[in-house]
């Protein structure tokens, strides 16, 4: 059987998914962590069950892209039953969705999560009564710890799950309209829906409520104008009492839920008072402190990465890799009688290329740890709120700051996180500016250059690059929004989840999950890339082991170098490094290591210090920050925008921007220090 895991945003669907399937999908404490559906297999029991984790939705009417993913799955995919996660502390709001899920006609099982939070607020829920009133099983769980999951699994195992005999009366006018819509749907379509377990009545209701996905589909099946006319009739009749179909449906559901909640909950008096969340909110969204706290958080993240923790660790690893590891390998290769070709490939190509990137792993892990802390604590949604005033003036929603902050961890999930934004134009805009957020791959290059050229001001120099990216993103958003969202209003409504005290176990796991990708990439992609770059740097048409200045790599770099000349770093090495950097930006470090490290004239750091001036180095870093998003990000942008034009645009504007800014830096540098 296939279960769809559905529920409101931030109620713990993914936590439950992980507990049930024993897998690890990303969880966080802000609405919109999951933006695409994920499939897992349930670990317990004999029968194989599939669970599909869906993005959170408030109702089945989609407004944003992630919600549409969820709705389309419930509408079309072969789902046998719905596992509805309900936040017990937000019962009414969650049950509105439950009603719509019951109406789909699919069997439903309710997992009642966060009963502990509800109890702390003085609310006790009689799940037996809830189950009886809704006609479906309701099992209490604590998804975060996995409590109650065995009982839930057992419940899903029993084949006694059947479609609910449940039906809410929406009043004469709407019931008549529902009947007419159901009758208008052609038989073959109706049979198809019934076979898939979907109730035609549900589709009719969603049509009346204004679900655009359902409207498009039914209008296609029924033919022009028939259904809109039925809706028009209902609207006219309801307007006499000041209602709309949407409002009337809501009212009927509310009335039912009033009764239900009265019957199956007990409110303890005495609990309550100002919660810790409320007090914290007063501080982080304070009139004067809000924005400084956000900036301080970011600054602390940087200092932790560069000064306090990350850099010392990275330096230690560098010493280990370039010292004992490289020397040991060299001795071993010599004793094994390896040829000069192989020795150079291993030491210059692989150790230089892969090792050069691995050195930055500690710094990157520290950065990921800080980002995980922000995600888990519940601060993420506050960032959107605190930054909304600024966002409003540049014509985007404060919610765009969530993808931007995630973009600091990696641009790919950052671009995908833009799905939670309701307005299509604002979503597009966010996708386009997210790649300007510097990611750990670029950080590796910055760290290398900053250590060589600005040893005493590393954190500030790198921070300035991050800030450059942010400022340019804001300027670009302001410029583009004037053309793009002309006339389209901007919206910002966001749910602010209660703060959680981050748990070390979860932080450790998240940091590892994010950082693991970086190490895997170093072991696979960068490994292969390093070998390839080393080969390109060692061969040309006349043979192997040629001087590097005559290699293919030098030729490729040489063609492009004149273009970079006006920017100050017109040497073939810089050009070649930038070309390889398109595949993954940290490859620039590998390329530099291979090109400069194997000349025998001391370390990469010394070679760089000769090849660049500090101003050129800064210009190079800025260029690297801005020019064309990496391959993976470009592919994601293509996927999210579904438009070749916008994909080309995002790569093109970035290149132009990088060129112009680097040109300005070169000019300013010449003027200041020239």
């Amino acid at each position: 059987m296939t279960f769809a895991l559905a529920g409101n945003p931030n109620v713990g669907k993914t936590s439950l998914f992980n507990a049930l399937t024993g897998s690890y999908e990303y969880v966080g404490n802000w609405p919109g962590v999951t933006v695409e559906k994920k499939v897992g297999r349930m670990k317990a029991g004999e029968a194989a069950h599939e669970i599909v984790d869906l993005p959170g939705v408030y109702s089945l009417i989609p407004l944003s892209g992630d919600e549409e993913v969820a709705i389309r799955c419930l509408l079309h995919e072969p789902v046998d039953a719905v596992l509805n996660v309900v936040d017990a502390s937000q019962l009414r709001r969650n049950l509105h969705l439950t009603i719509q899920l019951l109406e789909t006609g699919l069997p439903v099982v309710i997992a009642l999560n966060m009963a502990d939070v509800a109890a702390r607020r003085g609310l006790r829920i009689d799940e037996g009564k809830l189950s009886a009133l809704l006609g479906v099983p309701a099992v209490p769980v604590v998804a975060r710890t996995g409590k109650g999951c065995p009982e839930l699994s057992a419940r899903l195992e029993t084949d006694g799950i059947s479609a609910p005999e449940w039906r809410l009366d929406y009043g004469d006018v709407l019931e008549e309209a529902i009947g007419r819509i159901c009758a208008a749907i052609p038989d073959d379509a109706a049979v198809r829906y019934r076979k898939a377990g979907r109730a035609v009545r549900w589709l009719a209701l969603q049509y009346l409520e204004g679900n655009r996905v359902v409207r498009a589909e039914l209008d296609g099946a029924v033919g022009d104008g028939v259904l809109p006319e039925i809706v028009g009739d209902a609207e006219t009749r309801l307007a006499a009492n000041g209602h709309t179909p949407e409002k009337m449906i809501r009212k009927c559901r509310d009335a039912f839920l009033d009764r239900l909640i009265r019957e199956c909950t007990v409110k303890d008096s005495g609990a309550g008072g100002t919660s810790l969340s409320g007090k914290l909110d007063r501080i982080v969204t304070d009139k004067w402190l809000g924005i400084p706290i956000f900036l301080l958080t970011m600054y602390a993240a940087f200092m932790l990465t560069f000064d306090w923790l990350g850099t010392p660790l990275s330096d230690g690893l560098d010493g280990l890799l370039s010292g004992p590891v490289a020397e040991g390998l060299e001795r071993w290769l010599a004793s094994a009688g390896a040829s000069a070709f192989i020795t150079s490939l291993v030491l210059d190509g692989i150790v230089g290329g892969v090792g050069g990137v691995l050195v930055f792993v500690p710094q990157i892990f520290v950065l990921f740890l800080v980002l995980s802390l922000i995600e888990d604590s519940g601060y993420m949604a506050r960032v959107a709120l605190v930054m909304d005033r600024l966002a409003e003036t540049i014509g985007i929603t404060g919610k765009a700051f969530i993808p931007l902050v995630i973009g600091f961890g990696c641009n790919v999930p950052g671009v995908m996180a833009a799905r939670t934004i309701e307005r299509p134009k604002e979503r597009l805009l966010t996708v386009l500016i997210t790649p300007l957020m510097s990611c750990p791959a670029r950080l590796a290059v910055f760290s290398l250059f900053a250590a060589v050229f600005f040893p005493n001001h590393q954190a500030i120099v790198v921070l300035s690059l991050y800030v450059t990216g942010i400022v340019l993103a804001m300027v670009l958003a302001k410029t583009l929004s004037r053309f793009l969202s002309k006339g389209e209003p901007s919206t910002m409504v966001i749910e602010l989840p209660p703060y959680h005290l981050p748990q070390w176990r979860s932080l450790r796991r998240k940091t590892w999950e994010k950082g693991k990708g970086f190490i895997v990439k170093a072991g696979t992609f960068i490994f292969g890339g390093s070998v390839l770059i080393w080969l390109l740097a060692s061969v040309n048409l006349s043979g192997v082991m040629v001087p590097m200045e005559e290699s293919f790599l030098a030729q490729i770099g040489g063609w492009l170098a004149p273009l970079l000349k006006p920017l100050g770093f017109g040497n073939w090495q810089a050009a070649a490094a930038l070309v390889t950097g398109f595949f993954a930006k940290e490859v620039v470090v590998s390329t530099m290591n291979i090109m400069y490290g194997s000349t025998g004239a001391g370390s990469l750091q010394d070679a760089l210090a000769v090849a660049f001036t500090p101003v050129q180095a800064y210009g190079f870093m800025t260029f690297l920050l801005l020019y064309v998003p990496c391959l993976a990000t470009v592919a994601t942008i293509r996927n999210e925008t579904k438009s070749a034009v916008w994909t080309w645009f995002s790569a093109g504007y970035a290149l132009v921007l990088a060129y112009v800014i680097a040109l300005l830096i070169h000019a300013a540098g010449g003027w200041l220090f020239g």
Partner: protein
Amino acid sequence: MQTLAEVQEGTVVTIEDLSETDAVLRRRLYDMGVTEGARVRLCRRLPFGGPLMIECEELCIGLRRCDAPKIAVRRL
């Protein structure tokens, strides 16, 4: 008739009318439980014309200030 824009921080009001608000916003507010008749507390206003924080049935919601004048409320 008062609007949410005129309410003091910390005041509890009931929502009277949301029909003036933009359709997408209204839908979201409905989803979050902010409907006509719902009780809402204005927790705070962020500075420099920043968003409002309201609380509705234990749920904290952030909302733009420019939308507040379109939300008609009644003081309790």
